[in-house]
């Protein structure tokens, strides 16, 4: 128990150290670009008009929200967020991971009594948190402006779904940074791979094509909402298998491979 506590304390210290190493200019650029991008009228839907239902009784002004369409607008924003997340993750990991190989900073860090796994995981956690928070704050603001109450469960389900595309972007970026060890390639390759993968999925089949766009995020949102409110158990069809593979298993495998490669295989001069 004491050993576990000590390991945890060391990991927290590493996290704090990694966070302090983030350049201010890079942090500012990420926050600025994500806020402007998410709240830009072409991406955000809160700048325009929303149709929310149809009138069923004119005298008492009762209306029926036939489809709560505005609850699904966040899925369109997540679609738009994905390419920018891949681009920013590339830059962030190139600066924070790949460059440390180039300037031998990592060798200096590894002379301290820290585990290699903790070093790479702390870098991943810090970069992932920065990207997630940078996207989540304007995304949350946009959802509140859309009329979704900040106390409703829907907003937190959307925030959970937002975590998946950013997880994919970050795990791809860390995989490239650890294997190539060159900052230029690490910055450029994640967005290129993302666009290549999108193009490949786009042309393969209709089901995988739909995976790229908001329909399946909406289905995932409905399934999580029903499961949390105990309305129904989500059916695990082929759609959820695709969602599970693309949104969760692929990023986790990329991250696990990066950690194992860094810990067991990678030779540092």
């Amino acid at each position, binding site marked *: 128990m004491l050993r576990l506590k000590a390991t945890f304390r060391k990991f927290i210290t590493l996290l704090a150290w990694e966070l302090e190493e983030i350049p201010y200019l890079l942090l500012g650029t990420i926050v600025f670009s994500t806020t402007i991008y998410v709240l*830009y009228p072409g991406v955000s839907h809160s*700048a325009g008009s*929303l149709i929310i239902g149809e009138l069923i009784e004119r005298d008492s002004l009762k209306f029926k929200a036939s489809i709560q369409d505005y609850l699904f607008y966040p899925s369109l924003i997540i679609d738009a967020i994905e390419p920018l997340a891949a681009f920013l993750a590339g830059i962030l990991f190139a600066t924070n991971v790949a460059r440390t190989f180039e300037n031998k900073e990592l060798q200096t860090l590894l002379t301290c009594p820290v585990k290699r796994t903790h070093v790479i995981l702390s870098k991943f956690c810090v970069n992932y948190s920065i990207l997630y928070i940078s996207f989540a704050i304007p995304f949350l603001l946009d959802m509140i402006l859309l009329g979704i109450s900040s106390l409703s469960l829907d907003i937190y389900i959307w925030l959970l779904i937002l975590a998946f595309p950013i997880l994919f972007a970050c795990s791809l970026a860390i995989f490239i940074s650890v294997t190539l060890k060159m900052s230029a390639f690490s910055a450029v390759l994640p967005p290129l791979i993302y666009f290549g993968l999108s193009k490949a999925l786009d042309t393969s089949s209709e089901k995988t094509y739909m995976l790229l766009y908001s329909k399946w995020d909406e289905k995932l949102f409905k399934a999580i909402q029903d499961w949390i409110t105990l309305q129904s158990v989500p059916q695990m069809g082929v759609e959820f298998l695709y969602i599970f593979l693309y949104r969760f298993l692929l990023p986790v495998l990329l991250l696990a491979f990066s950690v194992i490669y860094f810990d067991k295989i990678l030779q540092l001069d």
Partner: protein
Amino acid sequence: MRLIKLVIVFFLTFSISLGVATVIRGLIPEGFTSGITLLPYESHTAIYRWPPRFVRIELRSSDKIIFQVYYTNHENHTIIEKYTDRGLFTINVRQRRLNYYILMQNTLNKSVNVNLYITFYGFEKDFAHLSIILNAFSISISFVYVYLSIKRSNIESQD
């Protein structure tokens, strides 16, 4: 100490970018068009949520119709504009979370073609207020931090 600086940089950048986003959103007009054919004695109502900007509604109909715009806060409803002719109307939307109803009613014994062109322009009031408050707050925090840093470095140099 560097962590506090990092949080201040984050907050300051966020508030500045929110201000820039407000200006961008205010300068870009948003809009949509809807066309409908009202059969004899038919009516049509659409319910919207609009951002707190100026709304310009251009109504073009092939004949006279009753055209109303009103909002409700679930209990009471207030008719804000009522027209019986084609024309150009401007509405100042003050709150975001109200439901706005557009009612078009054909009182004639013949079909009427109606085209609506709705454009939103101007700054979103709530968004602008939020960005001004956040900017003022973050700039004040930054100044306090810089002042304290200078004071601390002076004390250290004296020691």
